[in-house]
């Protein structure tokens, strides 16, 4: 069994090295640890603050989860409604089974415009499918216009966070990247974030005014109206959505909401959960081609239907990519995003990536969590990530033949299902006293002493004392 019920898996940038090894390397990077601790600490406090401000947060969260569940339960109908609303207004709708097909559609559309360059609004879906690489293959340069994406692109680096892809970089590293890679940059550029933002503004201004094809994602697509919504901060999204003659939007099929009204929930949940603001600086809504533009929407599956097929895993498709679970996760905070090897890191990545690719291609991610549960608490659409991780662990285990671990587990379970057998085993622990002092437990004993088994178990004490 790979994906659920043999549903076709997704491709693209969703797999990497096994998590434990990748994490080990990342954990040794002191600079990364400091950068992440600082950044996630800041954002956690901000989020807690603005979430605490709303007296009806719990109700909004319940509504958000229910709306997304409605979308997932009736996805075919909503997709058709969305398509109909879009085409009736003149937007061209394309469908893609997987990453490769999505890339082919977009590259064909771009090629037809004759442009050598496209400007891009930050979009995880396009990172997931590897669109920039596909465009490069046909000789088209994709200019990332989100500041963090630009930092990643100029630094020939990889995204490590779904909201702030360059979160692993601090200001002086960013200054160095800009000095090295940004054409015409002031060689005296300082590491003041203001100066860095200004440098990006200058660098991109000309692109905004001249490049005539833009590629975006969408945070939401409204099935009822065919409206697309992009939530952003810098104004690069507005630039890309407004000025070029051709706009191509790559949208995962799970991004829909049924009704216009539903945005009243998500436009409260998303900004407070993601950047910790009451509202993000800019949200663009457009319904059909606007102001003389040609508009395309590419609806992408790439493993989403495989995720949908698993009733215990499908809630991962509720995700609105706010990144609160990443920012709150003690594992993510220490390893950073690259260790997850996927476009989607952190807790949501650990449940989404293996479902998109099939667990056989991501067998370590479901175990990359201590199940502390903080991700579930902060998730604005109440995805029970810990339970889903546990469920996916089962899928990983049952996809394998017997292993030494499964044999040991079986023996232990056999003992634990009967008190007499179990007590005999526990009493053996007494003989383990000597062993535990001298035989290290792999992993554990590198940093922790093992407890000394007691002379007498509790049960033996209980029986002897009563």
């Amino acid at each position: 069994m790979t994906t659920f019920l043999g549903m076709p898996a997704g491709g693209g940038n969703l797999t990497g090295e096994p998590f434990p090894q990748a994490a080990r390397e990342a954990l040794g990077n002191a600079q990364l640890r400091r950068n992440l601790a600082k950044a996630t600490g800041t954002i956690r406090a901000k989020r807690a603050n603005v979430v605490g401000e709303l007296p009806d947060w719990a109700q909004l969260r319940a509504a958000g989860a229910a709306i997304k569940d409605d979308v997932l339960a009736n996805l075919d109908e909503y997709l058709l409604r969305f398509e109909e609303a879009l085409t009736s207004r003149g937007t061209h709708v394309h469908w893609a089974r997987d990453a490769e097909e999505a890339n082919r559609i977009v590259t064909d559309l771009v090629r037809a415009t004759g442009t050598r360059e496209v400007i891009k609004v930050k979009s995880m879906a396009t990172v997931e499918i590897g669109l920039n690489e596909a465009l490069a293959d046909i000789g088209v340069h994709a200019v990332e216009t989100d500041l963090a994406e630009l930092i990643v692109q100029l630094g020939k680096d990889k995204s490590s966070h779904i909201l702030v892809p360059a979160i692993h970089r601090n200001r002086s590293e960013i200054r160095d990247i800009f000095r090295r890679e940004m054409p015409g940059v002031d060689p005296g550029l300082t590491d003041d974030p203001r100066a860095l933002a200004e440098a990006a503004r200058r660098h991109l201004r000309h692109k905004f005014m001249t490049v005539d094809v833009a590629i975006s994602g969408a945070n939401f697509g409204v099935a009822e109206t065919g409206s697309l919504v992009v939530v952003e901060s810098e104004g690069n999204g507005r630039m890309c959505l407004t000025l070029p003659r051709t706009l191509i939007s790559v949208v995962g099929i799970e991004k829909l909401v049924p009704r216009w009204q539903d945005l009243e929930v998500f436009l409260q949940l998303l900004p407070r959960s993601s950047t910790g603001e009451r509202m993000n600086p800019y949200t663009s809504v457009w319904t059909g081609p606007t102001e003389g533009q040609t508009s395309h929407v590419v609806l992408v599956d790439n493993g989403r239907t495989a995720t949908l097929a698993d009733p215990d895993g499908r809630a991962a498709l509720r995700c609105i990519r706010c990144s609160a679970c990443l920012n709150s996760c003690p594992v993510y905070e220490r390893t950073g995003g690259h260790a997850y090897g996927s476009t989607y890191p952190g807790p949501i990545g650990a449940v989404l990536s293996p479902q998109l690719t099939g667990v056989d291609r991501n067998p370590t991610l479901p175990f990359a969590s201590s199940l502390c549960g903080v991700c579930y608490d902060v998730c604005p659409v109440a995805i029970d990530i810990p339970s889903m991780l546990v469920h996916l662990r089962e899928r990983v285990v049952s996809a394998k033949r017997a292993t030494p671990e499964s044999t040991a587990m079986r023996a232990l379970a056999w003992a634990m299902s009967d008190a007499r057998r179990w007590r005999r085993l526990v009493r053996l622990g007494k003989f383990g006293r000597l062993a535990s002092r001298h035989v290290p437990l792999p992993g554990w004993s590198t940093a922790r002493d093992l407890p000394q088994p007691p002379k007498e178990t509790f049960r033996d004490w209980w029986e002897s004392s009563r």
Partner: protein
Amino acid sequence: MRVALFVTCLVDGLFPDVGKATVRLLERLGHEVVVPPAQTCCGQMHINTGYPGQALPVIRNHVEAFEHADVIVAPSGSCAGSVRHQHADVARKHGDAKLAEAAADTAKRTYELSEFLVDVLGVTDVGAYFPHRVTYHPTCHSLRVLKVGDRPLRLLRAVEGIDLVELPAADTCCGFGGTFALKNSDTSTAMLGDKMSAVLSTKAGVLTAGDSSCLMHIGGGLSRLRSGVRPLHLAQILEHTR
């Protein structure tokens, strides 16, 4: 009240003093304690490591062991959490509706120690005396699965002579996570390191928590550092008198 103690496998085999403290505390408060003999383990390790099918007979054993208990108390947020939030689900997912129903019933009668003291018995001052500097780590499953809130702290604050100091970043996981500590030991160790520095920064001589598993983890690290900080279960502090 007649209280059935679910002592948990870890306490039974490795930390019997925690079980003894729980018994003495409940008896001191005037309640009868019984230890149903058929009990073993909640099966959480199997469930959380990907072997819920194997956990099924363990769950069945647990449900049967406590079939006749009015209230079940466990000195562990994690094990109580598994009983309350996993058992019925696992049974249902594996097609055993009858067991699921029975497990849901067991869940309703199961309490973590601090919940039982505060909510069922309605006490916060249990008459304990403990003249030491103590810091409290609210373990993840107590905090987020059972949502025990500040109940353990209310109990601790009422202890005579105690010097209770706040643990910085208290609600951050210590990195134990069952087999996580073995499968991802580097990440687990990094989390442990931060938890230990938080503990050491308080200058407390005693670290307490409601879960022996997390205490074993943090305590194992503190012992490796020869830090001199003593890990003690909440029950062991509450049991202590003049």
